[in-house]
């Protein structure tokens, strides 16, 4: 068969698929960030820490209560989402009228505190979490060996991403949300409880992060640093996609996953930096991001 730049095509397909899998984590996390930024104007630096807590929540459920993966998928987002709501009610809501910088500093500080607490308790190498028995094994696709679990992650995140996009861009509830961002006073005048809607939105964004955490738990170690490792990349994804653009963050998440995957084949040494190079280029050409509107 033909070779593409010295790489046999089946290897290339395999790498593309791996890229999509990683991209689905980027997409899920950046989606939560985009929702929170788009609707609350808060740059949520605690997102990585909340993702980590989501994974730890799954681990707790399994080791302390004996509740498996599927329960964790349901309970962890609700529990961490509720925690997010508590954060929003007690701290974030005082900052909406201030500059973005204050929200960023608060959430960044929160992230450091949460991460530090977990690290103090669990150390840095993390806890093991096995793949649920119903999703172990692998498909032999001919060109590669696809673990069932990874296939599930891609499917689940595609459904979640487009579900969220539909909810916010195409439903009535979504239109209230968007209107409340543009002009909260006016929407409030129509009898809609804007502060509560905003609280629930933050809770939803946080729940998405926790859900991504549960899905990541069987692939990576459940470790206090898992969020910190990812959050910087995810922010780059959000910036490239255009701050606050939901479709933008979904498409860029998957796209950058693929580009990163290809870098791992052609020049692995640069695989940690390629996303930031792209970010720099995009910012030079289109400062509002690929899908963003200048505000």
């Amino acid at each position, binding site marked *: 068969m033909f070779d593409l730049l010295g790489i*046999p095509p089946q*290897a290339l397909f*395999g*790498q593309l698929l*791996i*890229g999509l*899998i*990683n991209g689905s984590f980027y997409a899920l996390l950046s989606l939560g960030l985009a929702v929170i930024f788009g609707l609350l104007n808060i740059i949520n630096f605690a997102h990585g820490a909340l993702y980590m807590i989501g994974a730890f929540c799954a681990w707790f459920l399994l080791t302390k209560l004996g509740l498996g993966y599927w329960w964790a998928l349901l309970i962890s987002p609700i529990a961490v989402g509720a925690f997010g709501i508590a954060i929003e009610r007690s701290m974030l809501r005082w900052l909406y009228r201030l500059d973005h910088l204050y929200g960023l500093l608060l959430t960044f500080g929160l992230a450091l505190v949460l991460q530090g607490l977990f*690290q103090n308790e669990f*150390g*840095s*190498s*993390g*806890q*093991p979490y*096995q*793949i649920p028995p119903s999703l172990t094994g*692998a498909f032999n696709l001919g060109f*590669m*060996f696809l*673990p069932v*679990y*990874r296939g599930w992650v891609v499917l689940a995140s595609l459904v979640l991403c487009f579900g969220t996009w539909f909810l916010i861009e195409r439903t009535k509830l979504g239109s209230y949300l968007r209107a409340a961002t543009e002009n909260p006073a006016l929407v409030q005048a129509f009898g809609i409880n804007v502060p509560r809607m905003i609280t629930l939105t933050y809770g939803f964004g946080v729940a998405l992060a926790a859900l991504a955490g549960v899905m990541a738990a069987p*692939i*990576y*170690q459940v*470790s206090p*640093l*898992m969020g910190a*490792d*990812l959050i910087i990349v995810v922010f780059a994804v959000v910036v490239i996609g255009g701050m606050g653009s939901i479709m933008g963050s979904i498409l860029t998440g998957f796209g950058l996953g693929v580009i990163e*995957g290809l870098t*791992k*084949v052609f020049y*692995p*040494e640069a*695989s*940690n*930096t390629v996303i930031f190079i792209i970010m720099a280029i995009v910012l030079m050409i289109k400062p509002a991001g690929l899908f963003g509107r200048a505000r």
Partner: protein
Amino acid sequence: MRAPLVFAIVAAFVAGIGTAQAQISVKLGVMSDMSSLYADIGGPGSVEAAKMAVEDFDPAKNGMKVEVVSADHLNKPDVGSNIVRQWIDVDHVDAIIDVPNSGVALATSQVVKEKNKVFLISGAASSDLTGKACTPNNVHWTYDTWALAHGTGGAIVKQGGKTWYFITADYAFGQALEADTGAVVKAAGGQVLGSVRVPLNTPDFSSFLLQAQASKAQVIGLANAGGDTINSIKQAAEFGIVKGGQRLAGLLVFITDVHALGLDTAQGLTITEGFYWDLNDKTRTFAQRMAKRNNGKYPSMVVAGVYSATLHYLEAVKKTGSAEDGAKVVAAMKETSYDDPLFGPTKVRVDGTAEHDMYLVEVKKPSESKGPYDYYKILATIPAAEAFRPLAEEKGVCPLVN
């Protein structure tokens, strides 16, 4: 009348200075990865180990005053060498201890040599620290890449693993480990089919594992450590690497990594260790004391190495009478041989390598383990004389060897 009084005052002063001089003061700086992928290997555990060594040495009894400070080098050589400069120039630190991450350790080694202090290496692995980058100020206590390559690599080659593919951490340590292991493989008539260089602290190894799988090599050598090793072993299981007939060789796996992976995933790995807590009564007592002080965590070989190296350094300072001249203290360390409580008979060679027995161990099956940290079966003891690179090979490489 006045002269005797003045004389008395001066005499009192001189006596005062005299006692101050009699007390040797030493400052130890433990520099480690306190917060990232290597933190569980050494990190806070290394700081505790150094403090414990100081307590066991009992400075007051020996007319010494010893202080321990610590810092996080963030796995960045520039951060590390700045800390070391500040420690030595401003805070008068006499010995730098541990420093996992060979990149940071190589930078540290340069500064320590320039300032003529002492570098007690436990966490860093690169065999260059006692090879082409050796200095009269380095003591490399616990293990190095040569020992790992010959221990684990040699054992696997002997069992028939002839073709290798490496997944390598892309910095000094990974490159040294890959080179040393590659040499062992080739010397045994094997073949290195390729390697992929992975940036430090990468969460996802699937892409690299896939490349290794496609290479069809019999053995996939993991030339990485800490969190990177944990993630690569865990994900290799997911991609059915071992089930597909390839063998995974974790070239540097610590007991803390095994603990984090769980025996289900880690069982059967062949590992080279300089220290295991369940060797004899002395090691068991040490491990239990350490666990009490360090959040229940049993010591890795790096933590054990920090303890032993610190203890013998303090003895050497006492013998020399001062910690000022680093090279002189290291020379004193090289003069004696030790019956170390943790590492057994140990001798510091002219190149700075501390020569002691190493152990080839296999990770137990979950059914064989009695509980947390009961993880290893000792396959073989590698005698000190064979465990480390022969001095003859360092002629012309390390300037100290001739």
